[in-house]
């Protein structure tokens, strides 16, 4: 290489190189995030979609594409509708019970002056337990052999000493709902408290000067301003309930007689228990994913959170 062959670059290319450099810098900054997104989020989803369209058994591995066969098999399973219905029922129950309790506790803790910290800690303690550990704890508590709850209820004449809370479909459902409410109330209370504290005090002062009653203040000021927080906690609660697995896996194994079978438990069964078919499990996972996207979109729209305009 000699210097004679080198041409002096004109201005335009220099600008271009400058732009190119800027673009490169931009890419350099964006690449790590993009990589993380692609590797951790997009790739698994693409893999699951591919798996759902493949003959892919647990022990046999991937045996090539088979179109919509897995989806047809899933739709042909009589347990599918039962599990969807049960999951919805459980979701509505937990959300309807959890949300007011969380809001009530948050208001209580905010109002309480004296025992504020003690209360807060006491309510939060269950959240420190993993859901699986909490389930094992309640399994023991509910057990007619070793747990106190049966004996207590039998002593009060509310149930037969020899029957068991988890022995009937309704008992198993409510026993699980109770566990989940106990486990998550404190957590949702904390989220709601953050929302409450974000409401400026002058709004409340204005309401007081206008002579609004406490109830009126709550309904006209607190609730509207809490809307984004409530929307968030609701989405978390609904999504969490639709994906319920651990608590049922530990407490009921889907029983008695498959009456507490959630959709995610069915995915687990397809993969590891009954069908040992990863393709079917992936197909149902794809269906659940689509359902969740739809549910969340509907919720966000209904709560008006997506509207950016000031009203």
């Amino acid at each position, binding site marked *: 290489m000699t210097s004679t062959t080198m041409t002096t670059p004109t201005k335009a290319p220099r600008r271009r190189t400058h732009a190119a450099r800027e673009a490169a810098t931009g890419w350099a900054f964006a690449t790590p995030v993009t990589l993380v997104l692609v590797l951790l989020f997009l790739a698994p989803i693409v893999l699951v979609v591919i798996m759902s369209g493949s003959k892919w*058994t*647990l*022990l*046999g*591995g991937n045996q090539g594409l088979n179109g919509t066969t897995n989806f047809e098999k899933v739709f042909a399973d009589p347990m599918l509708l039962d599990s969807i219905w049960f999951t919805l029922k459980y979701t509505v129950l937990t959300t309807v019970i959890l949300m007011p309790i969380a809001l009530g506790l948050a208001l209580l803790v905010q109002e309480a002056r004296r025992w504020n910290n003690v209360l807060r800690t006491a309510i939060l303690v269950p959240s420190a337990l993993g859901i699986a550990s909490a389930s094992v704890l309640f*399994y023991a508590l509910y*057990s*007619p*052999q070793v747990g106190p709850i*049966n004996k207590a209820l039998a002593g009060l004449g509310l149930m037969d*000493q*020899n*029957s*068991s809370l*988890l*022995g009937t479909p309704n008992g*198993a459902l409510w026993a699980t709902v109770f566990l989940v409410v106990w486990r998550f109330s404190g957590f949702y209370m904390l989220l709601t408290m953050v929302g409450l504290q974000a409401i400026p005090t002058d709004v409340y002062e204005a309401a007081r000067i206008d002579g609004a009653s406490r109830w009126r203040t709550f309904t006209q000021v607190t609730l509207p301003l809490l809307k984004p927080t409530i929307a968030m906690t609701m989405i978390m609660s609904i999504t969490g309930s639709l994906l319920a697995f651990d608590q049922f896996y530990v407490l*009921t*194994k*889907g*029983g*008695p*007689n*498959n009456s507490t*079978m959630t959709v995610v438990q069915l995915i687990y*069964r397809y*993969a*590891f*228990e*009954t*069908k*040992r078919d*990863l393709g079917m499990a992936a197909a149902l996972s794809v269906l659940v994913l689509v359902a969740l996207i739809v549910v969340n979109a509907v919720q966000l729209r209904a709560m008006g959170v997506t509207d950016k305009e000031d009203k």
Partner: protein
Amino acid sequence: MKTRSIVAAVAAMSLSLGLAACGGGDTPGNNGGSPAASIPADGLDDGTELTMWTRAPLERQAKNAVEAYNSTHKNQVKLEILPNDDVEGKVGGAIQTDTLPDILAGDVVRIPYWVQQGVFADVTAQIDGLDTANLQKGHIDAGTLDGKKHTLPFVTDISVMVWNKDLYKEAGLDPEKGPATVDEFLSQAKAVAGLNKSGVAGSYLAGQSGGALVFTLFPMMWASGEEVLNEDGTKANVASDNAKKIYAAYNDLAKTTNGLGAGSKEETGATWTAPFQEGKVGVMQYPYTAVTGLFDTVDFEIGVAGIPGVEGNQSTFLGGDALGISKSSKKVAQAWNFMSWLMSDEAQQKVFADNNDTASSLSVLENGYADADERTKIANATIKDGRAPVAVNFNEAFNAAGSNWQLLIQDAVWGDGSQVDSLNEQITATLGG
């Protein structure tokens, strides 16, 4: 045009038939016994490290076997214990990534499916070189496909009838006489229930554990002269007249105050052996591997007998684990050294008989228990009448949570029994019949 589509169809068919023919057994790495030729009869003991998986319920026996081998051989076996419920997932994952251990032990009811899916290496030549007539046959049969043998017995776990002699005395029963028929089982359980002691029940059943129900109720059917499955494991026969008599006995107990222990109906198997251990159950079927551990630890006397049928006789479920060499293993000769050693009478005596556990060698069963507990001899005597059911889809039909078999028992014992026949049909459909 037409010809072309016919040719295509024929090609597709022959292709799929070809695929079906080699689906399962003939996966790469499982090339029908070709390593066999170069392996000495006792395998190789050259200081290789071997890996082995087994499941938690049989941890004690597995550790005894591995420790005995490691202390007398240059090869060293590294044992990994898997939780019972995770076995299938873990084996599945390891197959996809070709990271199976050298030696894999598994629940005998899962083995036929694993063999069909090509999990094990074919060791027909090696197994044929052993004195198989002297080995418990069920665990070899479970791993036999199209005449090719893949597995040997590892731990034989049998089910027996146990009763609490102290409760029997209290109830005015002869503490030395366990039930010899299903009717006697019912009347003895009812006598204990009649004590009306807090928390004490006549019997106990794991109402939501298909595996435990198979282990405890199949022997009653076999002892009554019934076959539970047809020869090739595609047809269920759990709605026979005798089966219904057995269910009726349990139904009677379920309706009796304190007849079946609290929690029976929803027992998922996690705690099904606990109530008897705590002295709260009169009489029930029990895994013998768990009984031996109780002799010295509980504060009541335990009686042991074979599981009776409707008219008498006795049978047992030849459960437990079979073991084979995985298709991933690069150390087949060394792994075979462990397996063939374990089949020797010397090892069977040391590992099993001396620990009051059930040996898989018939001669050891016959002669190796001279100093053993009398009850171990009673349990061992039932093995000749025992069975291990073999079906590729056994797990889905019977063992899986919420299986049709489990639903059938729920209906027969705690319901009105109206669905027993139709559920039996559905089990057959699941089995592939």
